[in-house]
């Protein structure tokens, strides 16, 4: 089936079955591979994207459910990779393997959009479902605080 999607401000058409998760639509059909496959079960948060500005798990969201909603992926978070969180992530040198970090940044971006000056408790609550297997949590907290100051 053909679906016309709004991804990162562009109209994109894909021919997939209705139950195809957005994760695989993005990765396999639209070449947007920044959204990562970690568990396929909505647990780890590696596939976090924005749907109409709210963070969502791309592996749990079918293409049919998305309809005309605005999808933002890590590739579309900023024009030049210069979102305050992206800059802070580099400044603080957050990443180790880096695999979870696009999902972490997308969750954090949804947080800052609502709470520009989050407390540690706000951060822990919002980031509670994004797994970092390398254990960079202390730096993720620091980078979110740094981005919030900008």
């Amino acid at each position, binding site marked *: 089936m053909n679906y016309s999607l709004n991804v990162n401000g562009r109209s994109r058409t894909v021919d997939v079955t209705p139950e195809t998760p957005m994760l695989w639509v993005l990765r396999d059909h639209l070449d947007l591979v920044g959204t990562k496959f*970690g568990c396929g079960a909505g*647990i780890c948060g590696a596939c976090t994207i924005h749907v109409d500005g709210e963070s969502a798990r791309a592996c749990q969201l079918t293409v049919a459910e998305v309809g005309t909603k605005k999808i933002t992926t890590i590739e579309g978070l900023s024009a030049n990779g210069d979102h305050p969180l992206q800059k802070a*992530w580099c400044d603080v040198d957050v990443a180790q*393997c880096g695999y979870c970090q696009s999902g972490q940044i997308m969750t954090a971006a949804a947080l800052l959009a609502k709470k520009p000056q989050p407390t540690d408790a706000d951060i822990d609550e919002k980031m509670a479902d994004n797994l*970092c297997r390398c*254990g960079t949590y202390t730096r993720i*907290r620091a980078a979110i605080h740094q981005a919030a100051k900008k």
Partner: protein
Amino acid sequence: MKTELPSLSAAEQALDRRSFLRLSALAGGGFAVGYSYFGAATSAFAADAASATVFSPSNYLRVGADGRVTIYSARPEIGQGIKTSLPMIIAEEMDLNWKDVRIVNSSIDPDTSTPAPQPAGTPPAGPGGFAGPGGAGGRGGGGRGGPQLPNLDGPTPQMAGGSTSTPSSFTQLRQIGAAARAVLVEAAAQTWGVPVTELMTENSAVVHKASNRRAPYASLVAKAATLPVPANNELTFKDPKDFKLLGTRVSGVENPDIVTGKPLFGIDQKIPGMAYAVFEKNPVYGGGGVTSANVDEIKKLPGVKNAFIVTAQGGVPAGVAIVADSTWAAFSARAKLKAAFDEGANGSVSWAGLVEQAKAAGARSSEGDGDAFAGAAKTIEASYTFPYISHAPLEPQNCLADVKGDRAEIWAPTQNAPDALSKVAAATGLPNRAIKVHVTRSGGGFGRRLNNDFAGQAALISKLAGMPVKLQWSREDDLKYDVFRPAGFGFLKGGLDANGKLLTWRHHRVSVTGGGAGQDNFPQGFGVNALNPSTTIPSPIPTYAWRAPNSCSGAWVTQSFLDELAQASGRDPLEFKLDLLANAPAAAPAGGAGPAGFPGGGGRGGGGTNPQTYAQRMIPIVKLAAEKIGWGRKLPRGQGLGIAFYSCHQGFVAEAAEVTVTRDGKLTVNKVVAACDVGHTIVNLSGAENQGQGAIVDGLSTMWFPSLNFEKGRLVEDNFDSYPLLFMPDAPKSIEVHFVKSANNPTGLGEPTLPPVAPAVCNAIFAATGIRVREFPLTRTSLKWS
């Protein structure tokens, strides 16, 4: 300002005998500096002998005609920061502007490298000798063969394991940088007609202060490319106190690509005409072949290109492959697959059964004690249990393979490219020289990607399907078909004299499946009669190296029980342990080595480190960790401090923790501090701290939440809901990593910072509550107190 190079590590000395620095002029201007190896001289392939002096894909650099420097980073990047830190060493010695440096991964490429397969039983040939001997059960074996592990003590440039990347590369990289600098300086000396001794280098330029002249490297490249490279013994090196780049904080070179979602990882790779594959295997460990599968139905499903039964061959286990036009089509078809397997003899294996056997072995622990405890005024005993755990890297195993006719090419997230190569060779029957391995960034390793079973499977499916395929494991596959951290049990007994001094120590380690004992560490060798019996309970559940093998569990057992002994003796645990450390013999035993294997940790520990050296390096960091956590503070009930230390992988680390436990048993780890002695230079301070912080979180996560259980020969857990790991709310608010410099060569951090955290936290829990945690995961022990 310049000084002699510090002594080479054993690995580097071995390398030194087989290699020489070489400079090559490049077509189009510029030059390359790197090592050539004689490894190919022993090659079975005659053609390799003719190309014995081509560059092996070790670390090396190219200086372009424009002066831009490209450093080829051969070590796989798995999150340990090596793609940033190792090139920093070259850049430091060469006085390069870091921003002028470009870093690229090198691949194993039959066109530019000289893999040198060797008969089993001979030592690896070093770089170029990719086919390290298959002592670990590598190629061709049925079922899931173990990884073809290169000799960790040898220079194995395309492997990252055992925290060896830094120690085995540090001096060699300095030599490459010093050689490149030397020819550029010589070029300036000849151009200006001044002696080399009047010249210095800074910011990618040669400077003659006397005449106030400055020549950017770019202006010297053409002449430098014609000059001979100095021999190793003619090179001069910076004094570490003059380092400008090393020891600073350098942000990871791939961070800009990571935060914008660029296709860095194995799972992100695509080539034209590729299909997507999944592979259903026997759920029973060590089971047999496919007895039935509805492949004809599967072939008719949407998007499916092919589905077929694979018989066990070339190291690839039996299974059913489904090849489709997208990952989701392959996953969806697999959900409808009905495959039956021959379960073989292991269909009744269970975790409960293994525990029963281990406990029976533990009940016989005292049989070897003899009269060892006869003189003790007081004895205490305790048993410790830790489960199998998974590596669970966040990027599930995957591999893109393109096998056509007489050639194979793969793109793999691997931490051991030589093993990937050998797995592909075994699976396809192709010679090594026909296989190209592209090493991608890996979404975590932790030891899992030393074993490249996934690469062999991808290659075989590509060959059988007749098209390039990306094999994608699900998270469930990744857990089920891991090679696990072995489970184990410790049955300990300690004997104290009337003054509370430790006389006798028995640590009976019972391992299931195998894995070393992790017993040959402190307090053995410190005036204590140490008994270290071990028992192995055989099991078909596959195991392999998990971050800080053996040490990751052994440290918890030994450092917890020492805390118990301190309590039994009425002593402060820190004082008790420091007193033991002070028991080191006054002088190193003849031959320089302590009691056999001491103090190792993981079998690859401070080989040759004697108790005296151990104490010299350990005491300062133990004291520093104690100081940083505020040891001795009076805390209310429900809060406590704990401390532990361990040496493995040539690193020495002490960690201290502060915890809070509520009356209803909720644990918060408030703070962890680490004090580390990993030699005289910290390469990248940011990366080093990050490794320490991450290892502490990993150690906490592993002790706290997950366990693997087995029933009917199968794994019970299947995803992160049943196999939970630590998320941000449970991470300590503060993790400090401190470094104490010593005269030793630098070593890695990814592993030695992990083992001490679990005992430090468990000792803190005891201090807070009086509850001793003797079983992992920690969630099995109630921490309620009143």
